[in-house]
Structure formats: C-alpha cells, structure tokens
C-alpha cells in the first residue's frame, strides 16, 4: 500500500517536472511571471537601472562627495561649475583630466565678485584623495574620497552655493535623505495599510464602516496644507535624525489610507473565494487564513500601489524642506538645496542652482515608469491592450487549446 502510494507520488512528480520543462509558464510563480513581464517593459528596465545608480550614489555618498556636510569655503561663494579639461591652454593633451585654478575678479559692469579660470595653474584630478573624515557605511572611519584635487585647487562639479559649499557634494549627500525618506515612509504605510485595511476587509460589518469613515476623513484633508500644519508642529530644535523620523511619520500618516483601500477591496474580493471557505471549514485559524491564503493573493498589487506612492512622497519631502519645514541645514536634502533657488535673482545670476531640480525630476520619473511597468506586469488583464508580447499570445494559444480539450471531454 505504502509503496504503491509512493510510486504514485513519484509518477506524479515526474509527470509534473516533464510538463514544467516543456511549458515553463505553467510552473512559474506569479513573481517570476511578473519579473519576466517587467523585463520586457523597456522604460521600466531603464528606470530600474537609473534608480539602482541613484541608490548606489546615496549608499556611497560620503565617499563619492569630495566635501563633507559641514565643509564650506567662504572665499568661493557662488562659484560656477568647474570645467573638467583634457586639453590645456597650449593645446597639449593630458591623459589625466585636470581643472584650472580659480581666481576672483570684479565684474566691470555689476561690480559683483565672480570667478574665472586661471590657466597658469593646473590641478590634475586624482583618485582616492584624503579629505574630510567620515564613517563609511556606518562601520569604519576613513578619510578617502573618490576624487579630488590637491590644495589650493578646488573642484566644484556643480558650482557652489551662497555659502561656498560644493553643490555636487551636497546633491550627493542630500540624496541620502531624499531617497530614503520615501522608502521608509512607504514601508510604514505599507504595514499600516496592510494591517488596517486587512482588519477592515476581513472583519467587515461595523468595524469596516468605522474604519472606512476614518479613512474618508483623513483623505478629505488637503494634503499639502496638512503636511505644512503637521510639519509646523515639529519642535524647532530637534536633531537631524529625529527630524528625519518626524517627516517620515508625517508622510506615512497620510499615505497609508490609499494602500488600506487597495488591501480592503482585495480582501473583500478574495474572502468569497471557495478556497478560503474550504480553509475555514477545515478549521484553519483567522490569522493563518489571512497570511497564508489571502495576503499572497494580492501582495503584488500592494507592491505596485506602494511603488506608485513613492514619487508623491519624494515631492512631498522636497516641498516641505523647500518651505523650510523639513530637514534643516547643515543637514541637507534636495528640497533644502532648492531653497536657494526660491529667489529669482539667485537663479538668474547662478543658474547652476537648479541642478538639484534635475535630480528630483529624474528620480520621480524613474519611479513613475518603474511603477507603471510593475502595474502592467502584475495585472494579467492589461497585457492584451498594452504590451504586445509574443509570450502572451503563446499563453493564449495554450489556454484555448486546454479549453478545447476540456470541452471535448
């Protein structure tokens, strides 16, 4: 008897593996299918590369940035971006790129101080120079930076701000805040949304009604003014880390409602499925039903919704810091860097102060495209109208064939 059963199981396994090898789609998990579909989405692919680069930048920020957060050189205020050169004034080609020294002079018309290159001084750009001390990846202390020039040369790839701080360093260092606030914020709202939306959808009835009204109320607040009001409530002299923490909480507090709605509607849809009823009859506990049978059914939709919520958070953090309600100097984020661009005279005279804006737009766009790609990949119904993929057609054919077979049976 036992051997018979074992043989049966073995046969079944063999049959399945043969079938799986012949038609990979049947055994591929949902995530695998999603990944395959995502790879085909060209914009999403490019975006994921861009995002990966940005996050690497943030991770290695203190190493890549030539200057630290507190560094400033008061003699080089509002200096324009340094040009990296290969060919010097005499027309000689240098294999090692270099920058010219800077000397200040007065603009004869406006009498404003400005910086011009001094072709008599050459400073070759060196790799792994020693500079400001920092803690690398939070583990070990070091003072090696990716690139730099010897004193008294200066390298300002994006120019400097009104206090003589290197804008490139600040953009790189600011990415740490600007790119992590939305991620952490989304994770918090992800958990909140899953929990509260789950309770609302699974319990139903009065609990559901109360939670839904509460969500309605939170959603009826105009977002930006509410952010402003909440941010104004942050005590004025808190540390950078606490400030970061507060901002993340504020973001998450508003964002979770959207995710909770997704979770709730999916819960309600899945609750009526036969397999859930079967699990209930079999005496499976509520928690186990939720986490083993319900959550896997819609988690991909939730991931999509969360990804699409990230751009809003980036803009939110930027807006708050921009208004002076978020991260404060000397700590920095892209919104803080945009503060100087608030005065039109500043932008008109020193247009390089708009560079952080480009970073914000690139990241927001990348997250949008990536989220779009994820959505297309997660939703099996979007493929017919959107992507014209050969694989889908193949699948369609398989589906039709099996339908025909079933009918003939």
């Amino acid at each position, binding site marked *: 008897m036992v051997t018979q059963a074992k043989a049966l199981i073995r046969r079944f396994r063999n049959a399945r593996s043969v079938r799986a090898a012949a038609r990979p789609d049947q055994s591929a998990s949902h995530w695998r299918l999603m990944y395959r579909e995502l790879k085909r989405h060209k914009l999403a692919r490019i975006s994921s590369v861009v995002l990966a680069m940005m996050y690497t930048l943030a991770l290695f920020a203190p190493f890549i940035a030539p200057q630290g957060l507190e560094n400033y050189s008061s003699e080089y205020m509002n200096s324009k971006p340094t040009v990296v050169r290969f060919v010097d004034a005499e027309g000689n080609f240098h294999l090692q790129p270099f920058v010219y020294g800077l000397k200040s002079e007065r603009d004869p018309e406006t009498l404003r101080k400005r910086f011009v290159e001094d072709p008599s001084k050459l400073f070759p750009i060196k790799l792994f120079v020693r500079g400001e001390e920092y803690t690398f990846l939070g583990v070990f202390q070091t003072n090696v930076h990716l690139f730099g020039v010897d004193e008294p040369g200066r390298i300002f790839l994006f120019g400097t701000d009104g206090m003589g701080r290197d804008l490139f360093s600040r953009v790189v260092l600011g990415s740490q805040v600007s790119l992590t606030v939305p991620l952490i914020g989304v994770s918090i709202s992800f958990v909140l949304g899953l929990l509260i939306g789950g309770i609302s959808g699974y319990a139903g009835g009065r609990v559901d009604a109360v939670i839904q009204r509460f969500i309605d*109320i939170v959603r009826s*607040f105009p*977002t*930006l003014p509410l952010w*402003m009001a909440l941010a104004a409530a942050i005590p004025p002299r808190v540390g950078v880390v606490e400030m970061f923490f507060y901002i993340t909480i504020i973001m998450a507090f508003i964002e979770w409602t959207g995710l909770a709605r997704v979770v709730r509607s999916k819960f309600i849809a899945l609750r009526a499925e036969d397999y859930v009823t079967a699990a209930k009859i079999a005496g499976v506990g509520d928690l186990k039903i939720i986490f083993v049978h319900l959550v896997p059914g819609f988690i991909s939709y939730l991931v999509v919704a969360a990804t699409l919520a990230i751009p809003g958070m980036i803009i939110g953090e930027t*807006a708050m810091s921009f208004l002076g309600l978020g991260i404060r100097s000397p700590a920095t984020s892209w919104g803080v860097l945009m503060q100087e661009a608030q005065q039109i005279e500043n*932008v008109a005279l020193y247009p390089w102060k708009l560079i952080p*804006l480009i970073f914000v737009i690139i990241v927001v766009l990348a997250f949008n495209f990536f989220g779009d790609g994820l959505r297309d990949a997660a939703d099996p119904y979007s493929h017919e109208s959107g992507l014209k993929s050969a694989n889908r057609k193949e699948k369609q054919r398989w589906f039709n064939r099996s339908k025909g077979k079933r009918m003939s049976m």
Partner: protein
Amino acid sequence: MVRYITRRTLVMIPVALVVSMIVFFIIQLPPGDFISGYAAKMSTSGEIMDAQALAQLREAYGLDQPWYAQYFTWITGILTEGDFGYSLSYNRPVADIIGQYMGITLLVSIFTMLFTYIIAIPIGVLSAVKQYSWFDYLSTGIGFLGMATPNFLFAILLMFLSFRWWGDPMLGLFSPEFAEAPWTYAKWLDLLKHMIIPVIVIGTSNTCELIRVMRGQMLDEMTKPHIVTARAKGLPEWRILVKYSIRAAINPVISTIGWSLTTIFTGSTITAIVLNLPTQGPVMHKALLSQDMYLAGSWLLLMAVFTLLGTLISDILLALLDPRIRLERKGA
C-alpha cells in the same frame, strides 16, 4: 436621485465636523502659541513684555483655555453667526481676510481649470486618433514630464525662463504700478499677463493626467462595435468621432470635475508661495508659521469642506452621466 443627493449631503456634515476638530487639534500642536511668538518678536525690537501683560493678552483672545474649549467657542461661532474668529496677526476678523483673498484664489482656480480642459481634451483626442504618430509620442512624453515635475519647482523654472527672455520674472499677479489702481482695462490686461505662469504651473500636472485619461478612454471607445457599424453605414469620420467616441469617452473626464477643482484649489498652495501670488497659499503659510490659529484653522477647514464638496459633485455627476450607476443605486 434627490434622495441620493440629500443622503450624501447629510453624511457630509458629521465628517466636516470631525475634520474641523482634527484641524483645530493639529494647528494648536506646535509648542507655544501666538502670544509667545508675538512676545519673542517684540523683544527683538527692544520691547519686553512682562508675564502679566502676556496673560492679559491670552485671556483677551481666549488662549488661556484648553484647546477643546477654544474649539467649542470657535465652532459655535461659525455655526451660529458665521463668525470665523479673529486673526491675531492681521488684527482683523478672519472672515474679512478670507473674503479679501477668496476672489483672486477662485479666479486663478477657475482660469486654471478652463486652461486644463481646453488644452487636455483636444490633445487627448488627437493623440488617440493618431496613435503612434509623432504627435502622440510628443504629447505622451510631455504628459509624463509634466506629471513628474513638482509644480513649485516648475514655477521656478518658468520664472527663470521668463526672466531670461523678457527680463521680468512675472512675480505676483499685478505689476507694481497697478497694484493699488482701480479696475481698468489696462489692469485687467496686466492681470491676464501675470496669470500665464501661475495657470500653466498649477494646471500642468492636471492637464497631463487628463490627457492620459482622455487618450486611454478614446482608444477604448474607438474600437467598439457601434463605431464600426457607424463607419460601415458611411458616416463621415469626424461625425463618428464627435457623436459617438468623444461623447462616450468624455464621461469620466466630466465626472471628475469636482475632484480636479479641489486639487487645483489646494495644490496651488506652494506654487502661490513661490510665485508670491496674493491668494490663499502665502496667507495660510504665514498663519501656520505664526500660529495664528483661527486664520489657519478656518482656511484648513474651508479647504477640507471644498474637498468634500468636490467629491460630492463628482459623485453626483457620475450618477447623472452614467445610467448604469444610477440604475444600480435605484435598485439598491
């Protein structure tokens, strides 16, 4: 239908009340109050106010009471007499200040909405009709960019360009020489000129979204069987478009008018601060920073009510325009 509308309106009232309570609670969260900020400001100009004078001031404005007592006085004032309280920093009744800025705010909002719809619908239709043409790619590309750029940063960019090209960043809504002038033809012209940047800036993200919605809807509608039938009957292409496709595709766009009004109304806050527009944005920002709580609270409350109203309008329009929703409601 009438029953549906009344029921929806009645449900709004308790929600608005709870919202007002939360609003009031949030704006009094920051430590200190208006008087302490005021005292700090006075002391920088050399005037030291003693504790007694401060206490007197607090009592006069009712700031010595706990927040729920203050809230109760405030909300009963609004409900019974339409009195929104007294703005401490402006030294005027809040209703007065709201009245002063509401006109311009509404004007900007309405202009923006007109701009949004006039631009978005034709572009959406065209890019659907000419799918995969260069026009389609261009409009979709611009649409994505417009959605990704935060409004207020876009404002800076446009101001910069305007300054580069015309030597005038177009700050505010009036040139200095017209600010106090009576309403003449020249002043209106000046206002319209200054309106260009705010309208573009506030309207862009909405426009881009609308273009996407309109395009998607049109693509869906244009392949439906009744369109094929119309074409087979020999109807000219433009009549098919106007009579069948656009009419059906425009439904969701029209029914979301309520929502877009509120997003324009509330989303313009930061843009208005950057562009220095004499609308509600800067007033609210200042009120929040100086803890002028009745002013800030009234604005937030008004905005929340606008949001609720917008949702209500959208729901009603949706029910009116789409017979399926209407019938479903009747059945229920």
